């Protein structure tokens, strides 16, 4: 049998181990553990819907034999609004309009860390009366607010490899597609023109910018020192290890995180876990100073990261900033 993905990725699973945590002079036992069950789960009355996605790249709704309403997804076999008249499968279109402005998930669950940021929206497909929830992406890079809203026309795109699940499809705005792409039934993700992931060209720094950068670097170093001195702030990055290559027009440096400590290394690091690029080093400095989150700077495209999965690290940096700000404030209140 060919090598296939497991239903639980091996990297998720900890080893059998326990550790002792000391709290106010007493020891407590923390145990690595899991709760889990496996299935060969029948899709029952939804089988046809999922097989149509997988095998035919078609989307099915169900039509009430009494009132004619078409529900997609086909949630039920009998219409509760019509004395439970039976419903029948019917194919619906592959474009539709957003029922409302979709949320964008930046902080995802552990199963979706590598998929964020993503939108999730309800699309009323042509020929359907109810809305189908699907994941939403833009082909232009990171998904940011404003790209999709209530009424935005959406095209359903099919994953190249499909297993018969709702994640076999997702949506993109039709405005990002050619008319041919919009028209095509069963459009595949490999047929889209995805923006390449590449470092932004930051241009040359002015002398003024260089001077400002130097000042910012000094500020940054002193801030990192405060962070390392704060037990509460350090908690935000405990057990974490990353080397970040930070690139600005005026200066490049490494930001090193290693189990509760964070520091700066001059020059572009030889190797890094990911790259952070910004025209203005103050964006990063403000973030760490708890003046506007780094997450939001990325969302507003003022700061760029080379790997979306590193939002995980960004969240830790934002927490670090918040924990330090909170500690300083409490200190000030007491002092």
């Amino acid at each position: 049998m060919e090598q296939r993905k497991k239903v639980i990725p091996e990297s998720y699973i900890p080893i059998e181990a326990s550790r002792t945590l000391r709290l106010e002079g007493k020891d407590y036992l923390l145990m690595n553990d899991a709760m889990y069950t496996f299935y060969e789960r029948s899709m029952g009355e939804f089988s046809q819907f999922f097989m149509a996605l997988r095998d035919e790249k078609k989307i099915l709704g169900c039509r009430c034999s009494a009132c004619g309403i078409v529900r997609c997804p086909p949630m039920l076999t009998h219409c509760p609004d019509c004395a439970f008249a039976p419903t029948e499968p019917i194919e619906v279109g592959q474009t539709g309009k957003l029922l409302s402005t979709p949320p964008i998930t930046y902080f995802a669950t552990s199963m979706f860390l590598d998929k964020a940021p993503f939108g999730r929206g309800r699309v009323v497909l042509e020929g359907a009366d109810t809305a189908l929830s699907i994941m939403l992406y833009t082909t232009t890079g990171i998904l940011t607010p404003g790209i999709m809203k209530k009424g935005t026309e959406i095209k359903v795109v099919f994953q190249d490899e499909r297993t018969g699940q709702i994640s076999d499809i997702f949506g993109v705005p039709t405005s990002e597609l050619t008319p041919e792409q919009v028209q095509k039934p069963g459009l595949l993700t490999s047929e889209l023109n995805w923006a390449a992931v590449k470092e932004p060209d930051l241009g040359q720094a002015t002398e003024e910018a260089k001077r400002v950068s130097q000042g910012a670097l000094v500020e940054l170093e002193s801030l990192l020192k405060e962070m390392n001195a704060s037990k509460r702030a350090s908690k935000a990055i405990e057990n974490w290890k990353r080397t970040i290559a930070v690139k600005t027009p005026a200066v490049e440096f490494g930001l090193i995180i290693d189990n509760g400590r964070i520091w700066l290394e001059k020059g572009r690091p030889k190797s890094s876990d990911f790259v952070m690029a910004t025209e203005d080093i103050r964006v990063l400095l403000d973030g760490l100073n708890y003046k506007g989150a780094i997450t939001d700077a990325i969302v507003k495209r003022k700061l760029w990261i080379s790997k979306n999965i590193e939002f995980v690290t960004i969240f830790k940096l934002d927490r670090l900033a918040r924990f330090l700000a909170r500690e300083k404030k409490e200190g000030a209140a007491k002092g």
Partner: protein
Amino acid sequence: MAKKKSFAARKVGIVGASVTPFKGRWVEKTFYDLAQWATRDALKDAGISPAEVDAVAYGIYNDIFERAAIPEHPLQGIIGLPNKPGIRVTNGGATGIYTIASAFAFVASGMYDTALVLGVEKATDCYDFVSRSATPEVIKTIAWSGDSFFEQKIGWTASDSYAEVILAYMDEHPGDLKPEVTAKISSVLSEHVKTNPYAQRQFDQVTPEEVLNSRYIVYPLKEMEICVYSEGAAALILAEEETAKAIAKNTGRPVVWITGVGLSNEWSFAGKGMNHWGRIYSHHVAAQQAYEMAGITDPAKEIQVIELHDAFIQQLEISMAEMGFVPMGRADALIDDGLMLDGGPISVNPSGGLLYCGHAVGASNIMSAWAARNELIDKGKHRALVHGTGSTICQYGGVAILEHED
């Protein structure tokens, strides 16, 4: 909705209440000990022994958080109620209020004279070994709540789904839920929490600016507009009229009567039956049921204290509108017109709410009832509303009306 008017065949009152401290993590205790602690303190508050309690209703949210599929069974002995009836209620985020409603029904029906309402939560044992942090695994565990065929596999999360409802409301009412108003509300709640020694964030006062500066979790929601996950327990002792009066006479603390209860579960998928998109209709329906039972016609005038399930500040605003305290589309009046500011007519979340006291799911709404009761008795106010919500698009709503006769 009920065709005839809902009523309670027997009068039911709260005669004891407690909460344990809510904490981000209770390393020191399992949920067994937290549950016993809340029970001990509620019994003490009512001045009664376990022998005087006829039944218990357990509010325990998600089996997986407790890492056990019948998590309440070991509790029956630990809390000292062996051989008594013990029913477990679970309704997502709204578990607490549904549990209260269930215990209320048991006492009002004549089946039992007294009942313990016990909510307990242990959520942050969950741990994601990839990001080396608890939260992604906590929200994943909650995300098992999504519909398993169509929602879970597209990255459904609780935040995402509240955001969906909130954005749909904002589509209809673009001028409402202004960022400076939600930031201000969060700041106001952070001031309220100062007097709640059981709160997870008792000393975490924030300015509106700090709220605005917090990061997006899910667009359009920022970290400091979202409740925090807590571990803890809360308990109430309910009693029918004669028993309640006898207990109150003994403790010297007046009975706080539950005069209205309403529950409503919406559709969870947009459909023919769901033409309320952009609303949180269940909160409207639940409130109307509770008002009807309690004989309330003008809630904004007749209710002084509100303990509202503020999973998200924007949802707090919409819920206040759905329950009739501000007009739909003008929820910002809560701040713009000073309704919930100091000296305003309504005290909203004197406990600090789920944002600042914390959201220990099964226990949260029970904590809210505890806080509302304290506010009524200690401040000599007349009437309070306790609210709970939950499930995948905030489609569960529960409301209880509490009244203090003195």
